[in-house]
């Protein structure tokens, strides 16, 4: 799996609430630590990816948020503006407002149009970088959630099938070439050892195979809880909770030790409840699994991002 970061384009998806953005940011940080110049693309999101770097929100133009990590926020309108400027040479000064409005309407109504602007911009950055005209070694996309990512990745094909002529159709070809090249591109899924995220991950991996040509990378299992006790330790822990043993514990540490024991029991139970989901994931997905432990830290800023990056680095053998 050491070659994951040697690709040029990584999409990261996942169900809401599993930590998709954190893992995306951590991958960028890790790649940058490996000496790569990384463009991190936030797609139509709430603009809080930069929080993970303790940096204020950014716009369409990439801004350095950490050494080697640049973040841009990709919006359909900004992509359209750039596209029209580059490809159609349409004079846009003062005109983009109404045209964007009209386009937004068409894009809302027509399948794949919004998505192609997003994916198109991302692919364009990758192509320009490969050909030496843009500075990125790696482009990482904080992509749509599991429910919408297929539509996003499959947009070039959707457009090619729907639009018979015109410049957009002509450009779907090179986009599809980039998106389907396993040396260049990988779709990665972030999940958590819980029922819904695991089910969605298994379904998504299957759909990505049948409905797109985009190669799959790894599944990142986030928030994995540690197993506190070995098999040999379990009866010891069980014996602490009652009778004369508990009396001794009270003498040594006070009655509040009951809550300490409760916490340890909760930690064990939380871990146990997640085991079947981990098993289901392993059985249902034949991709490399990268485990990221649950972070017992106070804040969710750069420090937490770095811890996730370190965990991913260890999993990738870096």
């Amino acid at each position, binding site marked *: 799996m050491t070659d994951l970061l040697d690709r040029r384009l990584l999409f990261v998806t996942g169900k809401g609430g599993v930590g998709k953005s954190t893992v995306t940011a951590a991958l960028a940080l890790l790649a940058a630590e490996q000496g790569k110049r990384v463009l991190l693309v936030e797609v139509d999101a709430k603009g809080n990816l930069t929080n993970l770097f303790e940096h204020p929100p950014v716009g369409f133009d990439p801004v350095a948020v950490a050494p080697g990590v640049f973040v841009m926020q990709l919006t359909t309108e900004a992509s359209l503006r750039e596209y029209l400027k580059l490809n159609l040479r*349409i004079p846009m000064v003062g005109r983009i407002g109404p045209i964007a409005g009209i386009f937004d309407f068409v894009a809302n*109504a027509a399948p794949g*149009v919004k998505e192609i602007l997003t994916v198109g911009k991302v692919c364009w950055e990758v192509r320009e970088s490969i050909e030496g005209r843009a500075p990125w070694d790696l482009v990482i996309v904080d992509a749509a959630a599991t429910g919408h990512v297929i539509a996003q990745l499959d947009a070039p094909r959707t457009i090619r099938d729907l639009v*018979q002529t015109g410049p957009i*159709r002509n450009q779907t070809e090179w986009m599809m070439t980039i998106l389907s090249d396993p040396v260049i591109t990988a779709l990665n899924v972030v999940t958590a050892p819980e029922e*819904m995220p695991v089910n969605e991950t298994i379904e998504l991996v299957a759909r990505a195979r049948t409905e797109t040509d985009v190669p799959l990378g790894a599944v990142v299992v986030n928030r994995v809880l540690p197993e506190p006790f070995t098999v040999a330790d379990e009866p*010891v822990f069980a014996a602490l909770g009652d009778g004369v043993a508990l009396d*001794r514990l009270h003498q040594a540490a006070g009655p509040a030790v009951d809550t300490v024991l409760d916490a340890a029991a909760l930690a064990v139970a939380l871990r146990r409840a997640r085991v079947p989901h981990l098993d289901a994931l392993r059985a249902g997905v034949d991709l490399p699994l990268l485990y990221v432990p649950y972070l*017992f830290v106070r804040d969710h800023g750069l420090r937490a991002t770095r811890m996730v990056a370190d965990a991913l680095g260890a999993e990738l053998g870096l």
Partner: protein
Amino acid sequence: MTGPGRPVVGLQALLASREVVVFCGSGGVGKTSTAAATALAAATQLGGRVLVVTVDPARRLADALGLDGIGNEERRVPDAVLRAGGCTPRGELWAAMLDTKASWDDLVRRHAPDEATAAQILDNRLYDNLTSRFVQSHDYIAMERLYDLHSTGAYDLIVVDTPPTRNALDFLDAPQRMADFFGGRLLRWLTAPYRLGGGRGARFVNFASKPFYQIADRLLGTQFLQDIAEFFLNFETMYSGFVGRARAVERLMQDRRTSFVVVTTLEGAPLREAEFFCSELTARGLHLGGLVLNRVMPEAFTDPAVAAAARVLTDDPTEVATALAATGVPALADPVAVARVLRTVGTSFQQLAVVATREAELRAELARVPEAVATVPTFAEDVHDVRSLARIGECLLGAPLPSVRVRADAGAGEAEHRPR
């Protein structure tokens, strides 16, 4: 009067006085299970006919409620299922799943002027794509279906789980956006060449000089635009039906019989979104019934006395282990193993205490939120049966947490929405 000492309105009073309660919050916070638990609690504690409408329940939960593979129809959860889960039903619990595609098809059939037009719309190759993507159609259809179910008058209480959206407010805007979309100038522009040119299949020629068509044509090609325009010409026949309906849905959301409950965990991002959602609901004149803090660590984990006890185990395990070995309990005979376990017990607590402290800090910042209704602790097990739903239900309808303060200026809005 409002203030820190004022008792907050419990969820029980809310459920007893409202006809529709909408659960919202960001993805992954446990909205679906909270909504289902609320409905179950209402059916067992308050009685009446209670319906829970859910969007995408976990498979095992759907199975437990008998929702698996039933499509768009509401079904009664058998009393035997409730009893097997330890609940004594006073009323009836019904459950329905939201099938977006089936709901859209129903809507088209209802509002199309005739069967031929309905068939043309349903057969259009854009239709599937459109209904799954445009103008937050998922959100709209959820609200539309809610309206439909409410207007049957068959239920005393409808509890709704909202679809996962990138922006939690999308579903509130959906009816308005739908009306704007069909009433908008843009739709007329797009379909104008076909109208004036003598109906469907007319060419773009007359409009080639206008910049909009020029650009659209260069980007997308004439054929594609024509497909879109044809589709919307058909769709437009449903305009008045759609807009009238969208307005009615909107009125139901604003009705005093409807209330909103925001669900969140005590984590940074979901909580920020929840707070934003609370203030936005109030700004829109919608009734914020309360906030559910889900999967919260026990407050005792932040107790300094407990932390001190844990330190004894982590710092001095050998001494304690020796004392325990002396008890003669066979499992505790090996002081080395016991010391190892004691240290692990202490560190396990310390790890969870970090989470509990983080949560307590976030909760303390919650002073800006108008009302808090309930806190549901972290349960080790997944919520996948009636028994675990009932346990959440007890937390939801139990005593409200006095430690969560009420916003000082909540008084005025509050009076209007006091349960009858």
